[in-house]
């Protein structure tokens, strides 16, 4: 597009600018910038593909599992067909039991009885072996199937089982979200609360947000003076102190957590010192770990740098002359702090608070190690369903609810404080 000396000056048409070779300037410019944009896009393409493959797709796939589980319809085609042909409330007759028997034979042949049994067991405990045991002897089933199956196990006549199988026969189901909110369906399909001794998830969601809030407040309380000190000391000293902040930050999370176990346990350093000083009696050692206290102490320490660093980066450029000017105009040191210094640090508080809170909500290793029973958070249950109970659909539903709650908080935060006020460093 460079203008060449040799080209003749283009005809000056009225109003529209053109390039040397006579095309309208606007079009040429658009083409040039489109090419630049394409090149820029090609440059970020690897990153985009990387994020898509390693982040968006797996998470999307995981979230899909929270509403989609086809273990039943995939392995029980005849009964699934019967359910879609007959509306809810139809008494299962001989045709339904014949379909069931045919499917059970299929389960036996493909060794998939466990898969179906596990799926139904999610919503009706104790039914897993019904499927595995009956399928093991499915070859012997002969008409009339209703009598044959009820003879094999009378539980096959349970209306609740049929209601659950009907629910499970649809691959797309909201039931995992119901389970994640301590709710379930009864025989008629109505949503009811789980019995009190089985309610857990709502309690854990509340506890997770409460603990995350307490930790955020504690890190702010502890981190604010430290960041202020770092920002006001001469560089020579503040750099040295900064290393003390960063050193634990660079240490392995596991090492820091186990160090807290050594310090806080019943026969640990803290308790031994307290007993030696006579502050607590030997029989009344404090329970500082394997409970909620342990979780809060260890997580506050681990997340502290995430509060200090944004605060420091906001405090450093605040000229000390502002506060001095306020003082010289007659403000007390408290007023100068409240009216001048503190408002200037708000973006750092906002950034640090958001970072610490969101990290704390998803924390998993530390509560698992030092949380005992009362310090468990929702992420520990997600991990339990991912790796132990293998109810991935429920794990996905719990994770989706957690994600939605965090997004909601983020939106509220944007409305109240404004995301533009955030300064990460």
């Amino acid at each position, binding site marked *: 597009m460079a203008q060449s000396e040799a080209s003749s000056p283009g005809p000056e048409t009225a109003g529209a600018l053109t390039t040397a070779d006579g095309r309208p300037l606007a079009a040429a410019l658009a083409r040039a910038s489109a090419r630049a944009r394409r090149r820029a896009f090609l440059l970020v393409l690897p990153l985009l593909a990387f994020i898509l*493959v*390693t982040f968006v*797709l*797996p998470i999307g*796939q995981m979230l899909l599992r929270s509403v989609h589980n086809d273990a039943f319809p995939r392995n029980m085609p005849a009964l699934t067909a019967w359910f879609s042909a007959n509306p809810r409330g139809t008494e299962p007759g001989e045709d339904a039991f014949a379909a069931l028997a045919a499917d059970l034979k299929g389960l036996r042949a*493909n*060794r*998939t*009885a*466990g*898969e179906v*049994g*596990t799926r139904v*067991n*999610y919503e009706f*405990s*104790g039914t*897993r*072996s019904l499927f*595995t045991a009956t399928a093991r002897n499915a070859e012997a089933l002969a008409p009339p199937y209703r009598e044959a199956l009820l003879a094999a196990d009378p539980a096959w006549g349970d209306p609740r089982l049929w209601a659950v199988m009907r629910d499970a026969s649809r691959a797309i189901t909201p039931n995992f979200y119901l389970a994640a909110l301590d709710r379930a369906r009864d025989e008629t399909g109505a949503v009811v609360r789980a019995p009190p*001794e*089985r*309610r*857990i998830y709502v*309690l*854990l969601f509340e*506890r997770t947000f409460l603990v995350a809030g307490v930790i955020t407040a504690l890190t702010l309380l502890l981190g604010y003076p430290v960041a202020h000190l770092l920002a006001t000391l001469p560089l020579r000293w503040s750099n040295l102190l900064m290393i003390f902040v960063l050193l634990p930050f660079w240490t392995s999370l596991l090492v820091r957590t186990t160090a807290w176990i050594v310090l806080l*346990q*019943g*026969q640990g350093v803290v308790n031994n010192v307290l007993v030696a000083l006579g502050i607590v009696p030997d029989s009344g050692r404090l329970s500082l770990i*394997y409970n909620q206290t342990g979780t809060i102490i260890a997580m506050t320490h681990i997340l502290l740098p995430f509060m200090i660093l944004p605060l420091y980066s906001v405090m450093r450029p605040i000229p000390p002359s502002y506060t001095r000017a306020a003082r010289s105009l007659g403000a007390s040191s408290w007023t100068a702090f409240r009216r001048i210094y503190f408002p200037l640090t708000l973006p750092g508080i906002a950034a640090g608070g958001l970072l610490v809170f969101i990290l704390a909500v998803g924390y998993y290793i530390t509560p698992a190690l030092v949380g*005992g*029973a*009362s310090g*468990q958070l929702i992420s520990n*249950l997600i991990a*339990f369903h*991912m*790796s*132990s*109970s*293998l*109810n991935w659909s429920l794990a996905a539903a719990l994770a989706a609810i957690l994600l939605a709650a965090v997004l909601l908080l983020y939106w509220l935060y944007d409305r109240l404080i404004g995301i533009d006020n955030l300064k990460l460093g």
Partner: protein
Amino acid sequence: MTRLLILTTALAGAAGMASAQSITVLGWGGAYTQSQVEAYHKPFTAATGITVISVDSDNPATPIPAMVEANNVTIDVAVVEYADAVRLCDEGMLEVIDHAILPPAPDGTPAMEDFLPGMVTDCMVGTDVFATIVAYNTTAFPDNPPTTIADFFDTETFPGKRGVRRGAKATLEMALMADGVPAEEVYSVLATPEGVDRAFAKLDSIKGDIVWWQTGSQPPQLLADGEVTMSIAWNGRIFNAAVAEGQPFQIIWDGQVYEPEGFVIPKGAPNLDAALQFVAFATSTEPLANAATWISYGPTRASSAPLVGVFKGDGVTPMAPHLPTSPENLANALLSDYEFWVDRDAELNERFNAWLAAN
């Protein structure tokens, strides 16, 4: 769907990719894995030239379904509890093992008659019988030591914190036995909602004094640190800590829950032939007897029992009285009911988690 999981886990898998001349065995870690390395892995490598890579897990049964589901199986053999072996086999997660590959006893008894009843299933070959027991630190109770499972729940007479495994299995059975349920009735009681309530009520009585553990090496550690005075534990870990390391630990055999465990091969194991070869080798008479001289877990073959001698760790302690299946240890003992746990595992663990989380 599965392909995506493969992509995401491919990186993790690349590290575990083994050559044709090695197999990977997933075990429970600690003294137990050490016994298997000495008794199975080393002799197998010496005999066949196939190296055995040993990796550990809190419970080797848990990673298997995830690996099989993702089509990315990185281990060849795993050591799992009986109930887990049956459950995973039902779900099609394990290779079916042809019983014909198992060698006969030295006197020619066919393998299937040599193994104790039920020790070999479609997918599992049993290696040993372990017990979940109560152990205490003798320095905590010098005058009046605890003797029964009920004493574990009596924090008045026997003060101090208690270590308990974070999980429903064996914990609920022991709670019921401590509450006075005879061993033979435990599972019929636990099958009723009232029975489950009763077990949790018993656990409630010491809930505030419990330190929860997850890996088998934690109870000896907690006992040695003085963090707990009594703990539920696996007998082999306590035996090794007490005899090999001289810790002042004592086992209460009253109310023990014993269960077989053994080798399984996950479906799609990368070195299936070598894995089968390993399982057949390791579960022959001599290696099984050998393993029982490294840790106090009983062998599963009748022909192995007479060969079990003294503890290899010190060369003097006879192993027989320390095995869970020794007659004097079976006075009030419970055989873990795999059918019960295959069926109720998910339900009871969910209830257990809810109970644990509630204050």
